[in-house]
């Protein structure tokens, strides 16, 4: 922080984080458009944290809009529904929206254009239902956290209820540059969002809801304040625009002054955080009986002709969205999500998922990255880190392969927000170091768990073989005993017969 900045610094503003150019307008101000139904939708089975869903439809089957096509399996999972009516043409692998370019399972639907929906059964007044019943409706609708983490919402709400949280924080921060889908949801659907917030309050038993919105979105703040006037338990709180304000821990600290300890969840300090788009999805699930089958996606970046927000069904290819918005030039890089934390896409033929906030198509000027230089130990990354870690030390340890030392410096608390890499004057790819180290540590941990499991399997097998051998021996002994008994009986009968014969003869 420079000297002048220090004087101008707002004492209330957080000291962590960075303030990148937000590039949100004009995309944020363009009215919401609806994508014409694409010819094919590729609906992935894993669009959430946890176990992938299991398909319950067959190839060739006709489905309707909102019909369940894959059911959840496992404790943390979410169902997947058909985004429109049509025919299932394939269940198989498709490139995932992931930097690795590896495939994952998806259901391909050939749309018929009629958009016929299944009839939904909606409760007349959900507030008369028990919280668990409303949570079940949200679970069945496949609602997941739309802020990016895609954690199944029903699991989170049930956890909030169990831990008796007092405050529900609604995240309208949207601190990532370029993105404006949450802004658009708050401007266009403020009443729906507030209704969703009330439903979530009902599910968790929290007394109040704090809606945190960055102060660079005055229209959204005004719309939400208007919609929330009738509900004193919902308070709209503008927060300073500073990246990463939309990260749950940072927002909790800014709004409540509570710091979530390392290794703890937000629920442990009596708070849960849900995104505004999630609140909107909850409203639609409970009031309209509509599962999570569409979302607002921001199409932005220097290569886009008409940047803006587009309402699109889940499973739309990024290529279809880009074609609809128009491209000025061949994009130099495609990113799903924000520029700070989003995933670089291998190509545009990947589907959007529930957690896709945006598709960014950058031109050459926007992606120019100077070559990484040596660390000059300026400490800018330490200043910027919202968690209070030492990115330079952690990266140095990872670079020489000492992952344990990096872990002891708090690597697991790193949220990969990218502030350190953004601020680094030497352009060191710090986040990549941390992502690599986290992946390696997790792989080692998984290997260890796997080995424990295989050891158990081997031990169980040994026990089983022993038991089988014992059973075999027992069965053989029994058969032998039976044979002997039969022989004896036969001999006895023979003897009796012989004696009878001799008696008769006599």
């Amino acid at each position, binding site marked *: 922080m420079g000297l002048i900045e220090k004087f101008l610094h707002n004492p209330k503003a957080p000291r962590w984080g960075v303030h990148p150019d937000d590039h949100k307008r004009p995309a944020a101000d363009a009215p919401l458009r609806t994508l014409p139904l694409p010819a094919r939708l590729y609906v992935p089975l894993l669009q959430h944290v946890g176990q992938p869903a299991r398909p319950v439809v067959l190839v060739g089957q006709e489905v309707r809009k909102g019909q369940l096509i894959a059911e959840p399996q496992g404790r943390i999972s979410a169902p997947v529904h058909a985004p429109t009516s049509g025919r299932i043409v394939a269940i198989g692998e498709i490139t995932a929206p992931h930097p690795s370019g*590896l495939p994952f399972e998806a259901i391909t639907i050939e749309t018929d254009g009629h958009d016929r929906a299944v009839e939904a059964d909606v409760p007349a007044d959900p507030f008369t239902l028990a919280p668990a019943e409303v949570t079940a409706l949200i679970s069945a609708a496949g609602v997941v956290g739309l802020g990016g983490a895609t954690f199944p919402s029903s699991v989170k709400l049930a956890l909030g209820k169990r831990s008796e949280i007092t405050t529900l924080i609604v995240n309208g921060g949207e601190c990532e540059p370029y993105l404006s889908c949450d802004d658009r949801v708050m401007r266009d659907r403020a009443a729906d969002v507030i209704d969703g917030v009330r439903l979530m309050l009902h599910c968790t038993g929290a007394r109040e809801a704090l809606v945190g919105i960055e102060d660079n979105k005055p229209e959204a703040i005004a719309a939400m304040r208007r919609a929330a006037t009738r509900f004193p338990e919902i308070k709209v709180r503008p927060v300073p625009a500073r990246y990463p304000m939309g990260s749950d821990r940072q927002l909790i600290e800014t709004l409540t002054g509570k710091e979530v300890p390392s290794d703890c969840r937000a629920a442990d300090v009596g708070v849960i955080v849900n995104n505004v788009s999630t609140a909107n999805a909850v409203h639609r699930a409970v009031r309209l009986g509509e599962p999570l089958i569409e979302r607002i996606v921001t199409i932005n970046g220097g290569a886009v002709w008409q940047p803006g927000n587009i309402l699109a069904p889940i499973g739309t290819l990024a290529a279809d969205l880009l074609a609809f918005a128009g491209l000025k030039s061949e994009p130099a890089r495609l990113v799903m999500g924000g520029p700070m934390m989003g995933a670089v896409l291998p190509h545009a033929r990947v589907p959007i998922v529930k957690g896709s906030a945006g598709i960014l198509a950058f031109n050459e000027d926007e992606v120019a990255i100077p070559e*990484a*230089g040596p660390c000059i130990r300026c400490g800018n990354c330490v200043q910027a880190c919202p968690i209070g870690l030492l990115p330079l030390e952690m990266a140095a340890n990872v670079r020489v*392969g000492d992952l344990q030392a990096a872990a002891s410096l708090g690597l697991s608390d790193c949220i990969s927000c990218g502030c350190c890499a953004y601020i680094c004057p030497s352009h060191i790819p710090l986040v990549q*170091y941390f992502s*690599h180290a986290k992946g390696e540590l997790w792989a080692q941990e998984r290997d260890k768990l796997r*080995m424990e499991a*295989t050891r158990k399997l*081997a031990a169980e097998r040994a026990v089983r073989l022993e038991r089988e051998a014992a059973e075999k021996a027992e069965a053989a002994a029994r058969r032998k005993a039976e044979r002997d008994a039969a022989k004896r009986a036969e001999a006895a009968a023979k003897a009796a017969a012989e004696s009878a014969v001799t008696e008769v003869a006599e």
Partner: protein
Amino acid sequence: MLAAIASLTVLGAVLGLGLGVAARKFAIDGDPLADEIAALMPGSNCGQCGMAGCAIAAKAIAEGTATATVCPPGGKALAASIAAKLGISVDLDEIADNGPMMAYVKEEICIGCCKCNKVCPTDAMIGAAKQIHGVIREACTGCGLCVERCPTEAAQMQPVPITLQHWVWPKPASVTTPAST
């Protein structure tokens, strides 16, 4: 002179007796270090290390006749934990070049003879008689016993496939000058 000889003799006798008693009283059967290492090992007794089982391999590691990197199914994680136990450093990169392997079944030539699932130490091979067999990825230690046993060469080894859940970001290419010291 006499006093010195007598006192040293007595001292020697007492201490010697003490040591002799302690050696009998506190004697431990087997090598505790070998047992601790054996507890870390996969326990499937697959024989990939060239020894007759995990316990024997653990003994060899404890005695120093085998290296900490001897166990292929254990991989880097095992080598690291054994090295930590022994207080030695191992070159983990040495293990990476053969990479973890696992079995797979070439379905078109599997005759469903059930021979492989009889030898699999962790029951990772599944399948009934005259049905195509399969491998449970998470249970396979890559020991290769099924490959030797398979009459039609349907069971084969392959590098463990990388999926979305297993992919790890590559380490950034090193800068020419040290990033920090």
